[in-house]
């Protein structure tokens, strides 16, 4: 039998909070869904939530970067915010805070067969980031059909659908979004029941940005090689096809921290501000 090891301070706190992850995500909706009607659209949030949604407190950083790209203006606020939050939390934001991730987590609770994705698909997010958020807006402007907001399922679901519903209720002419946008929305709504977090794992440009910080962020997944019994329980616990003991700071990891439930206690949430126990795995094997 493997002796239980006392977790570090951050890891202990995270493991106590783990059973409450969905409640934490739900609590953060009170920040993003603007219950107080503040509409602070002069500032970005660090999450993927369309600013055209009738319920959005802040502007979407990806939308702002794309819109500013179309204007040929550098978005200091959006980029500064992503660097600061990325350095602090990395993809913990995806797993614990993002409302669009929460929506997909809720859909994944429906007992339908779930399909896994090949590892290589995680790199598509960087293509989306470079093409639809940076290159297309800068070179072709916001009118191009591949401009990120024109293909974004979050925009379609959170903004276009409520707007169309509002127009229908008010008896006004309904302004339909493009066929491409509606098709992407339909595919997304089907996919969330059969693939865990399809948007986050395949296409999310914001997740692509935050994942780049996983190796250097203040909070990270710590693997203690001395405690690992190679039982591979963490492989089964990870719902995203990552082998946490081989690459604890994998670019595809959303930091749901499910793998920290492993019996030998070899995986923990760590922070750079506290002393590590035992021998950590080298951080260069992403």
């Amino acid at each position: 039998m493997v002796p239980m090891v006392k977790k570090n301070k951050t890891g202990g706190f995270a493991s106590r909070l783990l059973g409450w992850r969905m409640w934490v995500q739900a609590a953060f909706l009170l920040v993003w869904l603007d219950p107080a009607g503040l509409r602070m659209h002069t500032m970005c949030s660090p999450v993927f939530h369309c600013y055209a949604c009738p319920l959005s407190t802040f502007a979407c950083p990806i939308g702002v970067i794309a819109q500013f790209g179309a204007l040929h203006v550098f978005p200091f606020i959006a980029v500064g915010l992503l660097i600061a939050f990325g350095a602090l939390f990395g993809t913990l934001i995806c797993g614990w805070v993002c409302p669009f991730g929460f929506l997909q987590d809720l859909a994944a609770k429906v007992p339908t067969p779930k399909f896994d994705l090949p590892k290589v698909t995680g790199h598509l997010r960087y293509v989306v980031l470079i093409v639809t958020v940076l290159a297309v807006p800068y070179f072709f402007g916001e009118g191009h059909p591949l401009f990120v907001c024109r293909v974004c399922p979050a925009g379609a679901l959170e903004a276009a659908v409520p707007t169309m519903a509002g127009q229908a209720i008010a008896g006004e002419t309904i302004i339909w979004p493009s066929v491409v946008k509606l098709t992407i929305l339909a595919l997304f709504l089907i996919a969330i029941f059969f693939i865990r977090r399809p948007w986050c794992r395949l296409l999310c440009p914001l997740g692509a940005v935050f994942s780049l910080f996983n190796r250097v962020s203040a909070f990270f997944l710590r693997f203690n090689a001395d405690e690992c019994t190679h039982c591979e329980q963490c492989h089964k616990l990870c719902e995203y096809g990552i082998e946490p003991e081989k690459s604890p700071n994998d670019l595809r990891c959303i930091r749901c921290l499910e793998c920290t439930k492993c019996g030998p206690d070899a995986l923990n949430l760590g922070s750079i501000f506290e002393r590590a126990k035992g021998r950590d795995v080298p951080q260069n094997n992403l």
Partner: protein
Amino acid sequence: MINKNTKILIFGLMVLLGAALLAYGAFFHSTNVSAQQDGEPVMLAKSESALIKDASVSGVKRDESGKIKQTYEIGEKAPEACST
């Protein structure tokens, strides 16, 4: 391999860089935007915060000459919905 001290250094630099960009954007950065007031062209220096708000509702566009133009007249209400 990244050791702990290097990680702390990179983290510190990243946070400083992020905070500096954020502060510059929020308090010092502005962009010249051409607008119309009673049919007359006027040049406005919009703060980045104001530009974020306008960009989110298609209130500003870049024309073919490279100038950023406000899509509604000064004193008029800004568009309510994003054009995308």
